[in-house]
C-alpha cells in the first residue's frame, strides 16, 4: 500500500484537518467535529439549506460541493462509510436558516438509513427536511427499477442546479422540485481498470486481471455489467454510451451537458481520448452538446477508470447549470 498517509486509522481525520486549514475562508466545521463540514461565514436568511453526506474516498464528492451557489453543509463518513445520523443532524441544525433543509445524497443503504434518522431528529426540532436520493447509474439496475440504482458522479448536476435554485431564495419545495428534475434527467455509467485500497484495510478491494476491465462497475467496486479484456477507448465508449442515452431516452434535438469523470488514477489525457468518441457519437445522434465537464468529480481513491454522465437540459436546468459557483474544489464563472 503506497500512500501518503500517517496512521491509517487517522486517514480521514488528517484529510479533514488538511481541508479545513487549506480553506478557512470557505469551510468550517460544527459541533467540534471535523466530520460536520459547513460553509464558512454567516447564513443567508431565507435561503434553503442544502446538505449532503457520504463516505470519504470520493473527493471532490461529497464535501467538495459545499460552497457558493452549491451546498451548505456535508456530513463526512469514514472511507466508503456513511457518516452518522448524529453528524447529519448537527449539519442540518447548523445550516437551517428557517427555510428548511434539503438532503441530496446517493442511493446507498447506510446513507439512506442515517439520513432518515437525521430527518426524524430534525423534525423533532421543527426543522423541515426534504430528501432527494440520486441514483443514475444505469449499470446498477435495469429500467423499471430506477429506485435501486446507485448514485455516482451525476449527482454533481443535482447539486449544481439545486444550489443555484436555493441561491434565488426559492422555497424548499421549489428547490426540491428542481433537484428531483435534475436527478431525473441524468444518467451515468462507469468502467474500472484497477482497484483502490482502503487505508485501514491495506489491500486492494477487488482484483482485475492484468488486461481486464469491468464495464459498469460502481465507485466502491460494486459489480458491473461485463468483465472482459481491455478494449480500445472507442470500443469502450461504444459499449457504454448507448445504454446511457437510451435510458431516458436522450434523443435527436435534445441538448445535454456531459460529465466525463475520472475515478482517480486515470490521466486527464485518457479522459479526453474517451471523450473524443463520446462527442462523435452524441453529435451523430443529433444531440447538441451545451458544455462539457471533464476531470475528477467523483472518485474512488486511486481507482483507475472513468464514468460518463449525460445530463438532459431544458431552459430551466440550463440556466441553473450556468450560474457561477465556488467551492475549494469547483469553481465556475457564469456560462454564456
Amino acid at each position, binding site marked *: 500500500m503506497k500512500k501518503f498517509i500517517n496512521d491509517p486509522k487517522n486517514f480521514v481525520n488528517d484529510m479533514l484537518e488538511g481541508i479545513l486549514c487549506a480553506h478557512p475562508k470557505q469551510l468550517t466545521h460544527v459541533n467540534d467535529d471535523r466530520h460536520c463540514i459547513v460553509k464558512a461565514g454567516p447564513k443567508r436568511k431565507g435561503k434553503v439549506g442544502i446538505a449532503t453526506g457520504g463516505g470519504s474516498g470520493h473527493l471532490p464528492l461529497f464535501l467538495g460541493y459545499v460552497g457558493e451557489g452549491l451546498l451548505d453543509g456535508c456530513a463526512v463518513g469514514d472511507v466508503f462509510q456513511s457518516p452518522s*445520523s*448524529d453528524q447529519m443532524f448537527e449539519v442540518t441544525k447548523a445550516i437551517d436558516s428557517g427555510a428548511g433543509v434539503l438532503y441530496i445524497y446517493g442511493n446507498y*443503504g*447506510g446513507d439512506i438509513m442515517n439520513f432518515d434518522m437525521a430527518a426524524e431528529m430534525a423534525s423533532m426540532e421543527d426543522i423541515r427536511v426534504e430528501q432527494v436520493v440520486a441514483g443514475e447509474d444505469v449499470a446498477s439496475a435495469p429500467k423499471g427499477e430506477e429506485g435501486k440504482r446507485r448514485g455516482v458522479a451525476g449527482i454533481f448536476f443535482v447539486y449544481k442546479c439545486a444550489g443555484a435554485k436555493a441561491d434565488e431564495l426559492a422555497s424548499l419545495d421549489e428547490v426540491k422540485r428542481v433537484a428531483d428534475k435534475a436527478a431525473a434527467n441524468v444518467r451515468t455509467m462507469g468502467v474500472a481498470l484497477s482497484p483502490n485500497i482502503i487505508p485501514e484495510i491495506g489491500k486492494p*478491494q477487488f482484483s482485475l486481471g492484468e488486461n481486464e476491465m469491468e464495464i459498469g462497475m460502481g465507485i*466502491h467496486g*460494486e459489480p458491473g455489467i461485463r468483465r472482459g479484456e481491455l478494449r480500445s477507448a472507442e470500443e469502450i465508449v461504444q459499449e457504454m454510451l448507448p445504454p446511457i442515452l437510451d435510458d431516458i431516452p436522450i434523443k435527436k434535438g435534445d441538448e445535454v451537458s456531459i460529465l466525463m469523470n475520472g475515478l482517480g488514477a486515470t490521466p486527464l489525457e485518457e479522459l479526453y481520448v474517451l471523450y473524443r468518441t463520446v462527442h462523435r457519437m452524441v453529435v451523430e445522434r443529433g444531440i447538441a452538446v451545451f458544455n462539457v465537464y471533464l476531470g475528477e468529480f467523483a472518485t474512488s481513491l486511486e481507482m483507475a477508470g472513468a464514468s460518463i454522465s449525460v445530463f438532459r437540459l431544458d431552459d430551466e436546468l440550463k440556466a441553473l447549470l450556468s450560474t457561477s459557483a465556488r467551492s475549494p474544489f469547483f469553481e465556475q464563472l457564469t456560462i454564456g
Partner: protein
Amino acid sequence: MDTLCKDDIVAMIRAIRSTMEEQRDHLIELDAAMGDGDLGLTMVKAFVAADEYAASSDLTDLGKLLMQAGMTMAKAAPSTMGTLAATGFMRGGKALAGKESIDGADLAAFLRAFAAGIKERGKTEVGNKTILDVMHPAATAAEQAAADAVAPAGVLAAAAAAARTGWEEAKGMQAQHGRQAYYREQSIGKADPGATAGLFIIQAMLGAVESKEKS
C-alpha cells in the same frame, strides 16, 4: 437462574465484541465477496464502542443502558449494518425501559423490538436475504420459549437455534438490498454477511449467559 442483572448484560455486550473481533476477517471476507468488505471493521467498531460504554455506565435501568449502547454504536459505526444493529439495540432497549433485571420474556421482547426496528429502518421484509431473516425467526422462537416460562439461557438457546435455521435459509435467497443486490442471482447460495453478523450477536448473547451458568 431466572433473571439477568446488569453485570450479565454488560458481559453479553462484551461477548458480542469478542466474537466480532474474532470474526473480523471472516466478516470482511464475506462482505468483500459481494459488498465493500467493511463489515468486519464496522461490527468491531460498533461493539467496541458499545462495550466501552456499557462497562463504564452508571445506569441501573438496563433498558436505558441498552438504548444508550445502541446510540453509541450509531455514532461509532454508521454503515448499513452498524446502523441496523444500533437501531436494534435502541429499540430493544426501549422495550425494556425501567427494568433493572431481565427475564426470559424480557429477552424475547428485546429481540422482537430489535427485529421490528431493523424491519422499519431497513424498509424491508423477511425473505430479502438480510439480518432480518435471522432476527425475525430468533425473536419468534424466543417468544415461544418465553411463553413456556423458560429461563434466559433457554430463551436464547431457542433463539440461537432458530437464528441458525434462518441463516441457512437466507443463503438460498436472492439479495434485494444494498451492495449484495447488485449481484442478483449470483447472491443465491452464499451466506448473507449481515445475517451472519446477526447470528453471531445471538450466539454471543447465548454464550455469555451459558458461561455464566457454568461458573
